């Protein structure tokens, strides 16, 4: 079963008066439970692809389906709802809210979701923090944590609302290799234990080794798509 699907997607960016193609006719389906790496050199269209998967951008042509809904017709607030309910995000530079503690950062998407009451949110957040192994850091601010710890908070934040899939844009780019492996191991564990679908971009061969599905793209097109 696919969680998100692209059909003949084209994405052009306007640079001055010229249309610069970033994605040129891409068809791809991400299946439930995938642990997929999107690999390719910089400028190959990785980030654009993730933005399309994340409903942060709309395609110039073609269709993007999330749970069989074409997102191209949706209005900004509806897209926000889709992101909120279906998609988790992990960013390269962690992007935590600096004035909120680890606990509050993880709680933030649940507050936006408006589904759970305070006690239920608290239960979910504490469990999530324990799952990513930083239960004891719940009351720390991002500035009081290491990069690896911050990225664990970010993973907890992405997973706490139990999304259909999690997008991670070069999740290990800003941390040292050892911590990077720990983070990837954690993501893998989450994928296996909770069944969460992960899509992450990377250009690091060592990171690609962790992936069970490896999609190489070049010049906005799929070069190879292999499962291990």
């Amino acid at each position, binding site marked *: 079963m696919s969680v998100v699907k692209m059909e003949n997607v084209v994405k052009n960016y306007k640079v001055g008066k010229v249309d610069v193609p970033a994605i040129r006719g891409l068809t791809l389906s991400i299946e439930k439970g995938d642990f997929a790496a999107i690999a390719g050199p910089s400028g190959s269209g990785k980030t654009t692809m993730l*933005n399309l998967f*994340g409903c*942060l*951008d709309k395609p110039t042509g073609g269709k993007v389906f999330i749970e069989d809904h074409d997102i191209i017709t949706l209005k*900004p*607030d509806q897209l*926000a*709802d889709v*992101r*909120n*309910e279906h998609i988790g*995000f992990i*960013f390269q530079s962690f*992007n935590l*809210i*600096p*004035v*909120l503690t680890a606990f*509050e950062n993880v709680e*933030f*998407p649940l*507050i*936006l*979701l408006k589904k759970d009451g305070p006690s239920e949110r608290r239960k979910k957040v504490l469990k999530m923090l324990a799952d990513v192994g930083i239960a004891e850091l719940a009351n720390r601010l991002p500035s009081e944590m290491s990069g690896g710890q911050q990225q664990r908070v970010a993973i907890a*934040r992405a997973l706490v609302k139990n999304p259909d899939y999690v997008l991670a844009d070069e999740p290990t780019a800003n941390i040292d290799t050892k911590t990077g492996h720990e983070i990837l191991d954690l993501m893998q564990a989450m994928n296996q234990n909770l069944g969460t679908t992960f899509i992450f971009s990377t250009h690091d061969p060592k990171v690609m080794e962790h992936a069970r599905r490896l999609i190489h793209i070049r010049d906005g097109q799929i070069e190879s798509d292999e499962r291990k």
Partner: protein
Amino acid sequence: MFKLALRNVLRNKRRSFLTGLSIAFAVMVVIFIWTFVSGVVTSLFNNYVTGSVGHIRILNVNYLKRETMLPLSATVPDYQRIITVARQNKNVTLATGRIKFGVLMDIKGKNKPVLGVGIDPQSEETVLGLSKKMVSGTVLKAGTSETVVGAGLAKEMGLKSGDILTVITQTAHGSMAGINLKVAGIFSLGVASIDNRTFFLSLDQAQQLLDMDGRVTEIFLLIKDPDKAVAVAAEIGKTLRSGLTVVPWQANGFLYFMMAIMRYIYAAIYAFILVLASFTILNTMFMAVMERTKEIGMMKALGMKEGELSRLIILEALILGTLASFIGAIGGTLLAYYISTVGIDYTAAFEQIKDVEIPLAYVYKGEFSWLTILTGFLLGALLAVLASVFPARRAANLDAAEAMKE
């Protein structure tokens, strides 16, 4: 969400502090000036009303044309009947006759024009309140050949209670007449133009002196609501015979200007000060949005809606603006309390300008009003919110993907 907004306000403490300070200061200044100006305006209005124009006056048509000359040839006859008629109007709270006449006093070889005013001491007590304004001696009593003299005038003429004041003047028919008045007391209304030039005597004595039996130069009225003076004057005018005219206080151009226009001018000044202060909010919120571009992009990516984002930014401005306005209002309240109890004493300044025509008081006090303070506070908070709308829209409209690239 409130917690997040509050912490965002505290994120850059020095900037928030300076922004808050400018708003607090503006609110404080506005409350202070407002209180003081209201006090000055009210004081001037009351002085004008009680000392000369009343809320409404009934005059001889010809008197009005030459009022500065105080012509005794154009007076109001049969005044007691007119007072009775005027009192029948349910808006009228007081009606009393006055005779104003000019006297040249010989002071140390120099002539000084002085104003004699014949009054009904009993009725005037509610207008002038002379019993509370006596510096020495006793109040004026009807039917006696006594006088009470303004403190400035008494000082200049070397008069004390018990002295005799000789008044020589022209009667209504142009002949000369004189009277010796015993100084019963010295009064000070706290208004330079009255205290320096006026003596009061009983109305019946003035009528006798000036040969004006049954006549007065004006009938002085107070009404319930001074703002309705024009309408009430018109009503009373219908009941009078020709030759008389009914003049509401608004007919005094200077006073009307002051009451009607000056308040608006000052209101514009208050608004201007507060708008200037709110520009600091505009600037601060813009900087906050710019600095947090990436963070705002991330929040949108997490599913925060445009409306929720603008509300967050506006809430931050509201917290800052409300807190700052509140502090400003406390400062303003203290200043307003000071200015309305102690006031500013202009006695020294008025020593230089003794003969001004405007009834300026020696000491000006503010008019303390919680409404003024509340309005100042609310305006401060409201403008802070208004100033944040534009930055908030900017934050809401940021493109999430673009914002996160930075």
